[in-house]
Structure formats: structure tokens, C-alpha cells
């Protein structure tokens, strides 16, 4: 415990030292202030952009896109994954198509989506949908395939129909691994929303950062990056809380074993 507290203190000290060194080096022009403006200036512009509502507006449009694509992917690929995990024939039938599409690096899909959807929302949502699909799908399949056969057979014995067995037994039993897939996808979603906004957009936090760089408003650029990091951190924390709440029964069960 005391080690832990000491460790936190050390970390905070180093962080402060780095920021102080940056501040001083920038003010003394040892670091080019054009590229590395003083930390205080970045923070000032960060708070100004927050209170003026400029950054929150950009973040909001990014989050809207990200969540549409992400939720859509979850809605399509969790059911598909469950079916593919249950029915071996279906899994084998789609295996080659999936293995062909999966190695495509997601940013490369951006041009195809631009061709089809133009520069609008559809393009970004599609790119996020495509790229967050794979971790969700593959983890769901694995999760369902690894379920203890006894569970499923017990459900059958008690006369549960196929549909109810899926909802009551298979979905909960596979949910830890589905959650893993969802978490991996969350990180990818954030990356892709930024990429698609950099390549073809006129709003969103990814556009904001690249635009600030192109106009050499470097403090705005760092402020944008800071808010993006905060967003990533927040989403991750939110996900952890959600998972803990959602899977508390699972942890309890494992402890009981």
C-alpha cells in the first residue's frame, strides 16, 4: 500500500518535472516555441477552447459518429458471431470471406467509403463499422465455441427452446469474451474516427487537430490532442465500470469456484 502511494508520488513528480522542463525550455527558446509552445499556453488555450464550446462541439460530432458505427457493428456482429459459434456449417461457409477481408488495413477502406458515400457521415460510420467488426465477431465466435457443453445440454434438458437457450444461457456464458472484443474495438473505433476525419471531413476532433497544425496554431493542436487523450481515457474508464457492473456475477462465480 505504502509502496503504491510512493509510486504514485514518484510518477506525479516526474510528470511535473517534464512539464516544468518543457515550460522553461520553451520560454528560453531552447525548444522551438513555434513547435513546442509553453505548457501554460497550451493549457490556457485548452481551457479557453473548452469554455467557448469549440472543442466540446467537435468532440460531440466525433462521438456521435464513433458511437453510431460502433453500436451498429455490435448489433450486427454479436448476433452473427453467436450464430457462427453455434453452427459450424455457417462458420466454415463464411470463414474464407472473413479471412480475406480481415487483413485489409482499415484506413484503406476510407477511399472506398468516400467513393460510395461521399464525404458525409455515412462514409465515417461505415469505416468505423468495418474496422470494429473483426474483434467483436471473432471474440464472439470464440466465446460461444468455448462454452461448456454441459451448460447447453442442461438448458435443453430443462426444455428451453433454441432461442431462449441463446438469450438465457449462451449469451451470458459468452459475455466475458464478447466484452473483450468490444473493448478492443473501442480503441480501434477511436483511431478510425480520427483517421476518417483527417482524410475527409470538415469537423470532428481529428479534423480540428490536423487543421490547427496546417494553420500553425500549435497551441490549439496540442489542446485538441489533450482533449482527445481525455476522451480516450474517459471512454475506457466508462467501459471498465460498465464491464464490472455487467460482469460482476461472472467474477463472483469464478471466485466461488
Amino acid at each position, binding site marked *: 500500500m505504502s509502496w503504491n502511494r*510512493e509510486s504514485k508520488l514518484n510518477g506525479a513528480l*516526474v*510528470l511535473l518535472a517534464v512539464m516544468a522542463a518543457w515550460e522553461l525550455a520553451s520560454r528560453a527558446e531552447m525548444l522551438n516555441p513555434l513547435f513546442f509552445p509553453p505548457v501554460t499556453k497550451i493549457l490556457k488555450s485548452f481551457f479557453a477552447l473548452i469554455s467557448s464550446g469549440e472543442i466540446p462541439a467537435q468532440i460531440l460530432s466525433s462521438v456521435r459518429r464513433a458511437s453510431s458505427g460502433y453500436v451498429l457493428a455490435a448489433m450486427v456482429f454479436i448476433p452473427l458471431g453467436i450464430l457462427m459459434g453455434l453452427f459450424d456449417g455457417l462458420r466454415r461457409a463464411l470463414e474464407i470471406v472473413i479471412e480475406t477481408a480481415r*487483413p*485489409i*488495413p482499415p484506413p484503406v477502406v476510407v477511399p472506398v467509403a468516400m467513393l460510395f458515400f461521399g464525404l458525409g457521415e455515412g462514409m465515417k460510420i461505415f469505416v468505423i463499422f468495418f474496422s470494429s467488426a473483426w474483434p467483436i465477431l471473432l471474440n464472439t465466435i470464440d466465446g460461444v465455441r468455448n462454452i461448456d457443453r454441459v451448460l447447453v445440454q442442461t438448458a435443453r434438458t430443462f426444455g428451453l427452446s433454441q432461442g431462449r437457450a441463446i438469450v438465457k444461457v449462451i449469451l451470458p456464458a459468452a459475455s466475458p469474451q464478447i466484452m473483450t472484443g468490444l473493448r478492443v474495438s473501442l480503441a480501434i473505433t477511436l483511431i478510425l474516427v480520427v483517421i476518417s476525419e483527417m*482524410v475527409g471531413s470538415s469537423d470532428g476532433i481529428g479534423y480540428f487537430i490536423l487543421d*490547427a497544425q496546417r494553420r500553425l496554431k500549435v497551441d490549439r493542436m496540442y489542446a485538441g490532442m489533450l482533449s482527445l487523450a481525455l476522451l480516450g481515457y474517459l471512454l475506457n474508464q466508462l467501459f471498465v465500470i460498465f464491464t464490472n457492473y455487467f460482469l460482476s456475477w461472472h467474477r463472483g462465480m469464478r471466485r466461488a469456484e
Partner: protein
Amino acid sequence: MKHRRFNLPGLAVFAALLLLWEVSSHSNPNLQSYFPPPSEVMSVLFRLAFARELLGHLVDTLERFLGGYLLAAAIAVSLGVCLGYFRLAHSFFDLLIELLRPMPSVAIIPVAILLLGIGDAMMIGVTVYACAWPILINTIDGVRSIDRTLIDTGRTFGLGRMRILREIALPAAAPYIMTGLRVSLPIALILVTTSEMVVGGSGLGYFILDEERSFRTKEMFAGIAVVALLGYALNRLFVALENRMLAWHRGITAKGTP
């Protein structure tokens, strides 16, 4: 070794999809301009494969990929072993790592443009940055989870700190390190293609975006096929390498289980 059966239904579905694409593309000229028939994409791909242009882009992308990935591995593994082994060093940098990690790595591209210009250095730089995280985190975890007995045994036999690091900590953490390396493999390809799209000039990412902008869809799809093949080949290569390098580890763990 698991023997893989020939997957006939999978192949049939794949062929059926291609056929559907081919037929609908031929019958609808509007669709054809967006989704040219696969047969024409293939013929363009073969024509381009022997042309200098596509090959040059492929080589550029591959060079950036290798440069960034290998550099990231070298930096992150050595840093990770140190941070995992020395708790004090880890306590110094823990907070810094936790702050930088959640930022989506592509956001570093504008900074890199500012500092490194729009050449290879910038593309390699962002690739190093993005790939370093999974490798670093996994290496730290790997070294920290080493059985203390191993290290104590090494010390009993009079090994110095450096030799313990090199001969015990590094091999014992190797499975974790490999996981980090595998996670960062697709990330490297993402960062290389993205930075090629953003700054342009050369490389497969640039080629694909440029063909799209000039509405040469056949060439665009041919480029995507090349990137997909590249991703697939790199992954297979990695798995083969991993099996080879971790064969001893599998041997140990297999013996350990009853």
C-alpha cells in the same frame, strides 16, 4: 499439428460472392463505375504488378513499415525490460505512460508533420510511436510476472544484473513480448497507410487514395488487394517466426501440464 481440412463450403460462398459482384457489375453500368467487376480488377492488378509504379509504392510502404516496426520493437523491448525489472524506474514513468496511452495514436501525425516534415522520417516516426505502446506494456507485464525463483536461482549462481536481464528476464518474458509484437503488427500497417494518405507522395496508402480521387476504381481496388495481401503475408510470416522462436516455450509448458 492440426491438420486443416479443405474448406469447400467456404470456398463456394467466396466464389458465389465474387460471381454475384461480377454479374451485377456487368449488368449495371452505374454500379460498374463504383464496383468494377473482379475480373477486370484482376487484369489491372496483373498489368500493374509488372509496371514500375505499383511495385515502387509497395516497396516504399514496406520500407516504412519495416523501419517503424523494427525500431519500435528495439526501443520498446529494451525500455520495457528495464521498466519491468526496476520497480523504481517503473514508478517514475507509470503515470506518464498512463496519460499518453489512451490518446489514439494517429493524433500524433500532425505533431510529426510539424517536427519531421512530410518525408519518410515522419511516417516512420508515427509508426514507431504507435507500435511502441503494445510492445512496451506487454514487455513490462511479462518481466514483472517472471517467477522470482528464476531470478533468485540466477543470482545464487552468481550471475550479474545484466546477465540476469539478458539470459533470464528476456527469455522468460518472450511470450508476452511476442504478444505485444503481434498486436502492433496491424497497427504498424494502419499508421503507415494513414500517414501516406495524409501527407501523400508515395506508398500504397497514397496510391489508393489518389486512384479514388481520379476515379480510377479498378486501380483503387487493385491497390487494396495488394495491401490486403501484404497484411496477410506479414501475419503469416509473423506466426511462422513466432512458432519457431517460442518452440522451446511450448515444450516447457506442455511438459508442465499433466
